[in-house]
């Protein structure tokens, strides 16, 4: 009998993540929740280096490295054939970064969600093209420094969850490496839902966020507790549920610990705080609206 209390990791140590990497924590938690009967799709991103450099792999599940913009149809292709082969008990999970999801892979992701193809899409969002060395993506927050936005990104972060909800995707959820049980519960829930599932995981990047290596998990927790990155689920694009009630800390400490926000003025910080409150209220209203 499988003992729930025994942790079986589907990743090995000795992978090539940077010290303090948030992505690798998320991958480990997702794969731990999915277990052995899983096929993983990796695309160019931090996760591709973490998962494999020839002839090694840190993954204990079969995996395929696809192309940058193709995580979604690549995973869907595997899923279709596993079904044809009668291997319905195997989960297919695609790991993509924020660039591979919010930017170059968005069209293909939209296609698979539209067709409701059966697999789990995991966006490991470290808020910039970190694998190529900290260039801005459309997941980079407003005002955040990157090497290609030296005076701060002038645009707000794209709301990928709303894009997924607009597709009426069966299940979409945010998750955080700071709340591992919540994350793994969502993965297990996703595994048992038919169709496309989307997990948006904020994965702090010590290197790109310009912070000390030991602060990754704290940054993840603060992103949740400040309501900047609330933990919630959306069912069928309509029913919203908050899975963890954040404490509502002011944003200051979260910003101060990251060098990428070192240039912010008091006005910009105040503006950011206001936006967080507006978005939080929006989310709470969505939860209320669907409690009927």
């Amino acid at each position, binding site marked *: 009998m499988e003992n729930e209390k025994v942790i079986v990791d589907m990743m090995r140590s000795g992978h090539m993540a940077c010290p303090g990497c948030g992505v690798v924590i998320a991958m480990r938690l997702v794969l731990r929740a999915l277990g052995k009967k899983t096929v993983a799709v990796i695309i160019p991103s931090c996760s591709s280096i973490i998962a494999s450099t020839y002839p090694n792999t840190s993954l204990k599940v079969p995996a395929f490295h696809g*192309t940058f913009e*193709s995580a979604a149809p690549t995973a869907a292709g595997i899923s279709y054939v596993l079904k044809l082969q009668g291997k319905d008990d195997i989960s297919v999970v695609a790991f993509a970064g924020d660039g591979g999801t919010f930017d170059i892979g968005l069209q293909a992701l939209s296609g698979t969600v539209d067709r409701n193809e059966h697999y789990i899409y995991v966006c490991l969002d470290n808020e910039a093209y970190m694998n190529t060395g900290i260039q801005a993506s459309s997941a980079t927050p407003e005002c955040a420094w990157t090497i290609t936005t030296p005076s701060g990104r002038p645009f707000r972060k794209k709301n990928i969850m709303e894009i997924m909800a607009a597709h009426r995707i069966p299940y979409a959820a945010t998750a955080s490496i700071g709340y591992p049980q919540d994350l793994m519960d969502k993965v297990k829930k996703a595994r048992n839902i038919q169709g496309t599932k989307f997990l948006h995981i904020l994965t702090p990047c010590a290197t790109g966020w310009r912070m000390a290596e030991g602060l990754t998990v704290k940054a993840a927790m603060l992103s949740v507790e400040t309501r900047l990155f609330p933990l919630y689920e959306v069912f069928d694009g309509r029913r919203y549920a908050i899975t963890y009630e954040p404490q509502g800390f002011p944003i200051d400490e979260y910003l101060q610990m990251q060098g990428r926000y070192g240039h912010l003025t008091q006005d910009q910080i105040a503006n950011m705080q206001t936006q967080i409150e507006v978005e939080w209220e929006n989310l709470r209203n969505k939860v209320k609206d669907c409690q009927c």
Partner: protein
Amino acid sequence: MRELLTGNYAIAEAVRLAKAQLIPAYPITPQTPIYEKLSEMEAQGTLPGIMVRVESEHSAMAMCISASLTGARVFTATSSQGLALMHEMLHYASGNRVPVVMGCVNRVLAVPWSFGSDQTDTLAQRDTGWMQFYCEDNQEAFDTVIQAYKISEIVMLPSMVIIDAFFSSHFIEPMEVPDQVAVDRFLPKAALPERFDIENPTFVSNVVTTGSQFMPFRKRGFDDMENAKTVIKKVDKEFEEHFGRRYGMVEAVQTEDAQLVLVTSGSMTSTARVAVDSLRNKGLKIGLLKIKTFRPFPSGEIKSALQGVAKVAVVDRNISLGNEGIFCQELKSSLYNSDIRPPVYGFIAGLDGLDVSPDTLEGIAMEVMGKDEPNDLPVWIGGS
């Protein structure tokens, strides 16, 4: 059974009989009727596989690759801009050694936007590691799809089965469509490696970090593409034993005593057959060399066919700006290190489906017969 089919429908019929299991498809003129026909078969319950209506050709090929690696026989089709959009994934398919078969209907690439036949779309994919088969007519297109699955699944490299826009894709021709039992006998159910084994997990397509790791992969691909020549010939012969038709990597027509050999590919070849007969009737010793297989390039077959030939004229329905017609370039380079080096005259004709009539080809032959040496640049038939 004897049937009247367009080239597109001939390909769709072959895909059905080959029992492709997954078909990700996306519309583009003039390939779209393949997609439509397969959709109709699916709706009628006569298609053994499933179709996925993807949102781009790029995703179509991404899905073909991962589905093939999982163990399924797959198919897709495209043309022109769609093929160009797929370019990245074409390399990815051959690199991952998946036996995908794709129908390609040659259509001119923009700009200007147009729809007629022009081989530059597929020839621009020359270096992607795919086998390329240029078909003369609808029967050949059908037969080549069936053959291509067998060849690709032995060589483990993907294949393009190529026809001309409209001349082949939309023109109806009488042809022979074998029944399922006959096709099954020649092409059994796919037995592809299933690369994602839960009990024996491996990582497919790792990142390599040095050229010394990379080069052996390419070298194996190169060697296998070279060995594909033997496989193509063997499968063609076997096909003949089953169905009574064979094509060869090239077909030489009346080349033995020829003073001039016309070289063509695709649907233009059937026109050239008429032109050569007419020229022969006028007492001129003209032959014809049809190049069907472009990758791997049949250098040996071409050399054999051109032995003792005084002049060669290559008619290309494609152009590489800054050089010349692509079949012409390839033919010349395959002869350079041999002692068979007749002067080669390059002609560009029929771009965007401009008609190349028997008269056009006879004119080309007469022009070459009257010349002492070829121009440095290709001669354009039309275009000014």
